């Protein structure tokens, strides 16, 4: 049983990595900047962790914000959108649009995401 579990976990982990290697992901303007400057390490625990765990992080943060009024920047969806959005013709592209940061992966793994039926899809009001 344990062995099966290890095999299963190994497969899921490698599939997450495999995707990152074989295709360039649209990271978003600010995130690319931070990555090039080498600052991205301080923001996310590790690439594999944030890839796998971001739903839990967001869920945990959302409850803390809505119910307890904790409005820190860490794991806040606003911050995700701020860094991972791209611009086109001097306008932000909604982050849930095709080929954008959220949707590339989510389409690939076939999971819908419900954040943006309510949350704003671009950083702050104006560019």
């Amino acid at each position, binding site marked *: 049983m344990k062995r099966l579990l290890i095999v299963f976990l190994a497969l899921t982990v490698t599939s997450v990595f495999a995707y990152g290697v074989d295709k360039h992901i649209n990271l978003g303007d600010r995130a690319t900047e931070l990555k090039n400057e080498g600052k991205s390490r*301080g923001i996310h625990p590790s690439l594999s962790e944030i890839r796998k765990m971001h739903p839990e992080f967001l869920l945990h943060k959302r409850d803390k914000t809505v*119910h*307890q*009024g*904790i*409005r820190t920047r860490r794991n806040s969806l606003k911050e995700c959108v701020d860094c991972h959005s791209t611009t086109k013709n001097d306008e932000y592209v909604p982050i849930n649009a095709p080929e954008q940061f959220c949707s590339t992966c989510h389409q690939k793994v076939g999971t819908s995401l419900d954040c943006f039926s*309510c949350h704003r899809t671009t950083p702050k009001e104006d560019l």
Partner: protein
Amino acid sequence: MSKKLNRRDFIKSTTAVTAGVATISSGITLTTFAAEDSPVTNEKRWGMLIDTNKLTESNIDDMVNVCQEENGWGSETHSTGAQKPDWIKKVKVRDKTTGKIDMLPMMCQHCEQPPCVDVCPTNASMKREDGVVLVDKHLCIGCRYCMMACPYGSRSFVHEDLSNQKEHMPRGKGTVESCTLCVHRVDKGGIPACAEAVSSDGVIFGDLYDANSKINQTLKKIQSTQIRADLNLNTGIRYSGI
């Protein structure tokens, strides 16, 4: 009883947070924002005192407008008049006997015993420890039972798809919403947009429990009332002059 428990929880969680900050302080945001990192507690109760004698009609219109501006509602294109959201509205009443006319802003009254919270099947309608009544839209299924239960008609249902919401105020089709007492401002030490829009003492926002707060002291001095006080809901929004 519950108050005691909550206080204990509060102490527990604050110590946990301090410990957490000490250990994780690897240069990330946690340390910088430690002040915002503690949960709200029931040692505070946010409230508002609205003095209709000091409010002009244009004051009330201003309150409505800044609320729309702040929270991004009211520009729905498809919804008809009664379908549009109404987080705060201007209400004009006339006394049936004397004919005295009063005008007042009406919004969620942030009850201590909110009927909307009681009836919500999924816990989406909720009251924060500091007395602010909110809809957790992540849990809202749009059954609208809370709208049936609210004695103030102050909840709205989003009847159409929205885009370009305010960054701090997620809103979406198929969920219920209402005045949040601008928690996104209050949590950062600010006051609600509508209270800020009135320069006179017509609207006083503050902590009802704090004996030194202006709202507490004013409420001790002047005559005030709650709308539908007969329901014993103990509202956080108080009125004087009606």
